[in-house]
């Protein structure tokens, strides 16, 4: 389905729900996709729906809350956004929900623009992207310990010899 300048929000929603078995997000936000269909979804959006620009990848760390059952794992929610220019709706988003420490297939083979964005998420939140050609820290120094945007990162962690 290719519609020039038209609203294809519903088409994308149908695609996500029926073909990729997306579930509604329990905490609000984009629909959640199973980890196994992730790369396939990105390829479908790129090739069939002309979402050719890698918009963003943002990860957030959710430690178990007080209402969760004891010993539930830390969860990392990774949101993706693809953009299209001139065709259909501007933005298509979906989310992955994995346990902390699990690897996520990288989108660099599909979108070259995902390279540094995935490196940034690896640096700050500690998401491992499997298949990334060069997964190094991007913003913090090379010998940094830990991932500062995790909720369990101690703010007074000493960074010798500068802090």
């Amino acid at each position, binding site marked *: 389905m290719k519609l020039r300048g038209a609203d294809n929000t519903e088409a994308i929603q149908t695609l996500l729900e029926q073909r990729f078995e997306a579930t509604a997000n329990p905490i609000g936000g984009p629909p959640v996709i199973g980890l196994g269909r992730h790369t396939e979804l990105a390829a479908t959006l790129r090739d069939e729906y002309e979402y050719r620009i890698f918009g963003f990848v943002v990860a957030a760390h959710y430690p178990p809350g007080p209402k969760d059952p004891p010993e539930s794992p830390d969860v990392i929610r990774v949101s993706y956004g693809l953009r299209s220019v001139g065709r259909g709706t501007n933005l298509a988003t979906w989310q992955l929900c994995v346990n902390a420490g699990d690897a996520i297939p990288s989108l660099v083979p599909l979108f070259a623009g995902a390279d540094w964005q995935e490196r940034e998420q690896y640096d700050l939140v500690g998401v491992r992207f499997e298949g990334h050609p060069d997964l190094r820290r991007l*913003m*913090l*120094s090379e010998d*940094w310990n830990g991932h*500062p945007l995790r909720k369990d*990162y101690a*703010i*007074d*962690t*000493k*960074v*010798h*010899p*500068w*802090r």
Partner: protein
Amino acid sequence: MAVDERERTYHHPVYDFMMKVPGLDVVTTTVDKLLTFGSEASLWIFPVATSCCGIEFMAMAASRVDADRMGAIVRGSPRHSDVMIVAGTITVKMAPRVKKLWDQMPEPKWAIAVGSCAISGDFYRDIYSVVPGIDTFIPVDVYVPGCPPNPEAMMHGLLRLQEKIRASASGKQTEAEKRPEPIKHQRLPRLPIIGDPSRGTELDRQQIASAASLGWWDELNLEQALEDAASDSDEQDT
């Protein structure tokens, strides 16, 4: 085009008097004063402009405020420069780079900390990656507070530095500029600044080693730098 001296229209009573009396147009001075005049009137700047203070710094170097009339021109190489002006937040990743550039500048050299972030980190001070003030790793001569300070304030900083150079050359006892006190609510972290008695030599060694580990070991001469750091702190102790 050459100027014909007979057409010169500039007249000043003192100047005319000096030109009339034979011998008065020769000035005697000491070599020391001459060299001091040279260094204070040709402060070449090495800018480390990492954030918004850098924009004000550009305004200082540009035509309206014009630091050039004090002889302060901006150079792109630390090996040509006398003053390092650090204008902006220095992060943990940037700090060893700044330290290394500082080590590459030839003596005599001075440092000016421009803006709250370079002085103490200010409200970015509690963030995991921000260094709480550049005086925790290089000795600062002049502090220019503000967020950001306007170009005139930076110019005043340069003038204060010139004053300091003059005073130290004439052997006057001058008080070192004190780091402005940070706001009360800030609590983290307290790295002892250079010149603080509680600062150990081990910190100097670690910082030098961290900067040197960025590459070009031979050029920096790490062993010599470590010895210098040790002897400097020994002098401070005695």
